[in-house]
């Protein structure tokens, strides 16, 4: 059994320099070791970056410096010193030029987009990706993940700043699969911004600008002018232009519950809708109830509080008064306790 970590062999593994037996041992270890798989992914990523670098010619002045140094009498200490300095400068300049090229090239066209109807190409911020009926596209979000663009969709590529990638979905549907720390990938829609918190999801925007976020794994938040809805895997949240994110609910909730949430968000018979929500909510539906705490009147807030607390009381030292006063820290702590049931 081969139990030792094999990071020291990974570079030769990537270069194809290992013998068949060694390669087999590394393969076997990789199959069982997440740490070494992660190290391998990092090496492969570095190799891809290196392959993008091109050879850069040194400026003439550098060569002149070297020529002058060579022309000096052999054995002169100053001459040897000058030559070493010139060589060091050459290396620094080459590295600088290479780095500049690498940083400038992809930075001006940071997006890579592949269409099912054609090949892949790099695109710049501000450009639009449009798919016709029956056609799809895939956007590579740096090393964070991918976004699949469904047929009949229009999405604008945004600026890439400090590793933050931003898209603007005008209409249609995109499915994102992002493996990155939170808040590095954001999708702007006409009604809200979808802020990735490490997840996979689908966003649809209709011709009226209204949207729907459907989470398949992890979680994301919908944000608009200080209003925020947290949406974990298995939940849906709708959003409307001007109103921002609606109240999230789990897809497996009862039809009566989901219909009541939609009515509440639409403002049609909000009182009746709230009554229905409180009557048929399951423990898991505290996701919806928690969001309602800050969206109902003070009188109704007490009812919502009592309904949630009957399932999962606030954790110590969070008090009822803090929740009813919408203390942000108290609400966060209760949400984190409730989330174990989501």
């Amino acid at each position: 059994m081969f139990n030792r970590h094999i990071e020291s062999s990974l570079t030769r593994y990537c270069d194809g320099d290992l013998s068949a037996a060694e390669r087999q041992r590394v393969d076997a270890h990789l199959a069982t070791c997440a740490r070494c798989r992660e190290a391998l992914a990092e090496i492969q990523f570095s190799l891809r970056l290196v392959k993008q670098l091109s050879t850069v010619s040194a400026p003439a002045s550098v060569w002149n410096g070297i020529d002058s140094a060579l022309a000096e009498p052999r054995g002169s200490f100053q001459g040897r010193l000058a030559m070493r300095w010139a060589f060091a400068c050459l290396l620094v300049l080459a590295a600088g030029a290479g780095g500049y090229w690498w940083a400038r090239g992809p930075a001006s066209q940071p997006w890579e987009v592949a269409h099912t109807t054609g090949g892949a190409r790099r695109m710049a911020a501000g450009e639009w990706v449009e798919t016709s009926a029956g056609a799809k596209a895939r956007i590579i979000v740096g090393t964070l993940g991918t976004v699949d663009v469904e047929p009949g969709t229009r999405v604008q590529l945004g600026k890439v700043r400090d590793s933050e990638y931003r898209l603007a979905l005008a209409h249609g549907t995109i499915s994102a699969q992002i493996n990155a720390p939170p808040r590095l990938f954001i999708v702007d829609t006409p009604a809200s911004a979808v802020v990735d918190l490490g997840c996979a999801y689908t966003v649809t925007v209709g011709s009226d600008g209204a949207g729907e976020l459907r989470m398949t794994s992890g979680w994301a938040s919908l944000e608009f002018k200080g209003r925020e809805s947290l949406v974990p895997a298995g939940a849906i949240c709708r959003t409307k232009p001007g109103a921002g994110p609606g109240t999230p609910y789990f897809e497996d909730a009862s039809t009566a519950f989901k219909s009541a949430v939609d009515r509440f968000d639409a403002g049609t018979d909000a009182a009746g809708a709230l009554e229905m929500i409180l009557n048929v909510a399951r423990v898991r539906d505290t996701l919806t109830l928690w969001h309602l705490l800050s969206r109902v009147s003070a009188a109704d807030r007490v009812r919502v509080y009592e309904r949630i607390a009957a399932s999962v009381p606030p954790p110590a030292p969070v008090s009822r008064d803090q929740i009813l006063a919408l203390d942000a820290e108290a609400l966060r702590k209760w949400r984190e306790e409730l989330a174990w049931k989501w």
Partner: protein
Amino acid sequence: MSLPKLVTVAVAAALVATTAAAGTMFRLEIGPPVAAGTGSKALKTKGKVVLAVRALVCDDMANVQISGTAEGVRNGNRQSLPLDLLEVDKAQAIYAVQYQWPEDGSWVLHLKASCAKPKAEASTLVPMNKMAFIRERTTVLVEPATKKQVEDAVKDLARTQS
């Protein structure tokens, strides 16, 4: 009361008692990443977190040991991969599980925990649908899962996902 009725009542009472006792016994609880805390430094800097896990009912939470494996079937071959868990809050025995198993195949996460005081062991079998956990099919056990329970969970998931 007739004998069949008496048996039924006894069984029902035993079930209720077992369920109630389970709620006060050392066990693991899973939740979405948000359960581990939005302010958590570990979650702010790491990606691919698919679920959070915490221990419940232990007098010495800080020393609870939690580990796990991803148990799967891939191309017809049974595989078992050790999981690296991300420590979120050791004092509360809260950990996060990052996505670290192959994309193809059917995978069940087998999470195991031990509590020193009172001495107890627990486990949880979490079927995965790619990167999402299937809560309604998750099995919470107040004891170590048997090999048969693990194999059955993997087979069951593979059957439904094939």
